[in-house]
Every structure is written in structure tokens, then in C-alpha cells.
């Protein structure tokens, strides 16, 4: 695996994880779980606008929105996640994806390899079972972005 296709912010996160020992990687994931932004008010009261990622062991809901400027450049995708505080691992990975992918274009997001979660070096500590939910989260984002990009083209 290599990080060549990763957007800059995500590549930096991967480098940060890889530079650490396993226990410190878990601590870093915990920090990401704390840094996950709250939903904006317009989504907070509208759970029906979010989709559940059922492969996650804990409830995780997400949605995407597009932001287009007038200059005709490709739309930026904004990512929104909701996960309860009692699911820090799920929240942590949502935090990684938020910091790594929020505001990017469809092309950049779709270029992220599906097995990107493996690059964080957490598989042994978190177990393959738990990693599956993370991979599903990325997969869901990519599918929604792809569908949205098709609609707009």
C-alpha cells in the first residue's frame, strides 16, 4: 500500500499515525473522536437527512453536501457525521475522515483507496472486525459522492 493517491490532509494524518507506537495511535484516535465537530443546527433536528452506516458496531450516521462557487470550479463536498460519545472508536475514525476529506472535490475523494483505513496502523489494536465498520464508512462516503457527482454532471 502507498499513500500516493491520498489528499494532502489525509496523507498527513496517516503519517502522524504511522509515526507513533500502537498505544499512542489509539490515543490519537481518541483525540480525533473528541475533535469531531457537532452537526450544524439544520441537520441536528433532522435525523432523516442522515444515513446510518450499518456495518459500524455503534450507530454512525453521515451525510454529504456540495458547495459550488460561481467560478465554475468543481464543487467541494462537505461531510457531516453523527456518532454517540459512547462510541469513541467510531467517532475517532469519523473525525479522521472529516479532517482528511472535508471540503475536497469528488475527484479527490473518489481517488482515496478503499483500504485507506488499514494505513493508520490500527488493525491489530482495534481488530479486523472493528476496522470493517471504518472501511464501510469510507465506502459509503465515496458512493454518495459518486452518486452526487453523476447527478451534477
Amino acid at each position, binding site marked *: 500500500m502507498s499513500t500516493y493517491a491520498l489528499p494532502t490532509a489525509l496523507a498527513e494524518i496517516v503519517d502522524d499515525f504511522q509515526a507513533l507506537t500502537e498505544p499512542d495511535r489509539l*490515543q490519537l484516535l*481518541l483525540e480525533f473522536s473528541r475533535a469531531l465537530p457537532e452537526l450544524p443546527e439544520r441537520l441536528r433536528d433532522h435525523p432523516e437527512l442522515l444515513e446510518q452506516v*450499518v456495518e459500524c*458496531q455503534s450507530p454512525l450516521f453521515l451525510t454529504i453536501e456540495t458547495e459550488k462557487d460561481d467560478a465554475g470550479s468543481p464543487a467541494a463536498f462537505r461531510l457531516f457525521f453523527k456518532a454517540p460519545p*459512547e462510541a469513541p472508536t467510531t467517532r475517532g475514525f469519523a473525525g479522521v475522515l472529516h479532517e482528511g476529506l472535508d471540503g475536497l472535490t469528488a475527484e479527490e475523494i473518489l481517488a482515496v483507496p478503499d483500504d485507506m483505513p488499514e494505513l493508520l496502523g490500527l488493525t491489530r489494536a*482495534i481488530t479486523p472486525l472493528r476496522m470493517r465498520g471504518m472501511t464501510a464508512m469510507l465506502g459509503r462516503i465515496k458512493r454518495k459522492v459518486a452518486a452526487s457527482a453523476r447527478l451534477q454532471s
Partner: protein
Amino acid sequence: MSYPVEQNEKFTAYANPERLVSTEWLAAAIEGGALNDGKLVVVESDEDVLLYETGHIPGAVKVDWHTDLNDEVTRDYVDGNAFAALAAAKGISRDTTVVIYGDKSNWWAAYALWVFTLFGHEDVRLLDGGRDKWIAEGRELTTDVPAPAAGDYPVVERNDAPIRAFKDDVLAHLGKPLIDVRSPEEYTGQRTHMPAYPEEGALRGGHIPTAASIPWARAAAEDGTYRTRPELEALYLGEAGLTEGDDVVAYCRIGERSSHTWFALKYLLGFETVRNYDGSWTEWGNAVRVPIVKGAERGSVPAGAR
């Protein structure tokens, strides 16, 4: 039993009341300094590997069901050496009273308790209601990780046979009671999943012939505590049709949810022979030529299946 057993009306009705403690009991024991000398050790075991780090019962140590209790290579539990090393590192000696609690109505805590029991750890109890009840009651939490003095734990060989069933044991068991503790969708084989998300866990859906469907969470009340003895009897003796003295096997997907049911049958209702089939559906649903029933009916054991 090395640490005093809790007496209360709800617990006294159970077959083995000494296997549960209440949040009040634990809070008082901690307050009284019970954790200071290694006689009592509190263990948190959660589904989420980071949950302990966000805050836990003061003095509690963490045992992760997967990374600490499962062998990394073989699909099996750790051996006697690894378990002794784990216990000692957590400040647990062979005669320590261990109280285990966790998230989701103690689902993973019951699993950890079951693994402790495979090693014959004598005094291991569950905190009734687990982590959620402790928090709901506004009790103290801390992010301080204790550094307990090493426990003195012998290398004990695991004794699986009394409480653990393997696939061949289940085949030989067919015709005797089985409890399937998974969701109704998993039981019938109509697993709900999103388009383009194949269920990777098992190649076949359904249940083991004749198994009764009693989803594990039905043994828990809204506050995560175990239901009372009469309620559990209505569930397992009434609905599932078990009778006293039955030899029972419980299973789920990987043996975690069924540990919660195993505990209820073994210690709360007092069934002597209850085994947890930890291979569960991820083994049975992938095994070649084992009998499977689809749909809501329990079905029957096909001739020659044993």
C-alpha cells in the same frame, strides 16, 4: 468466595446470587478501600476499544475482549501462560474477587467473565447494569489509569468442556435444547442489509435446527440489569420451553451475545449444564454440510444429521 457477597431481594431469588453485585454495593466497596489490597479488582470490558479511556470507574482496569482474551493467530482464546500474564498485569491473583462491567448491558463483560471461567477463576462477578447504569446514576468516573501491583497468578490450563461447545459438540447435541440469541432477522436468515453491502460474516443464513429464538437483550431490563428471576423463567422456561435439568447450548454470531444468555441460564436460573458455542454462526453458517433451518419455525433435526 473471598469478598463478602451482596444480599438483596432481587439477587436472592437467583440460583447463584453471589455472581452479581449492584452499583450501590460496588460504590460502597470502593469507598471502603476494597481495591487497595488486591482482594477485589474491578475490570471494564467494552465493545468499543477506546471507551475505557474516555472515563471509567475509579480503580478499574481494562481488559479488551479481542486483543487481550483472543489468541492473535488461532481462532481460540489465549492459553494459560498468556492468561496468567494478563491477570497478573491487572493486579489479579487466583483468589481475587473480580467484578466485571462494560457497555451494552454487559454484553462484552459477560463474555470476559465466561473466558475467566474457562480458566476456572473462582470468584468472578458481574456488575448488574454495567457501565451505563453506573453513569446514569451519576457515579464517579475517572480517566486515571491505575498501575496495580502485580498479581500472583498461576499458569492454569483452560478447561473448556464444561461451558464451551465446539461444532462437533453441537452436532452431537442436536435434539437437545439450543438457544439462538441473535436478532430475529439473523435467525430467519432474512438478514437486513443495504444494497451493495454483502454480508461477509457467513455464507448461509438461518439457524441451527430446533434452536429457540430468544434475542439476548430480552434478558436485560431497560436499565441494563438482568431481569428478575420470574421474568427470566417466563422467557426461558415458558417461551423457549426449557425444563429443569436440561442440557443447553447457546450461540450467536461469535459467542459474545450468547455469553450474556449463558450467564443468565447458568447462574441466575441455575441450569447445571449450559455451554456457549463460540464458533456460533460465523462457523456454522460457513461450515460444509451442517443442517440449517431458514424462516421463523424452529424446524426439526434431519435424519442422519448427527
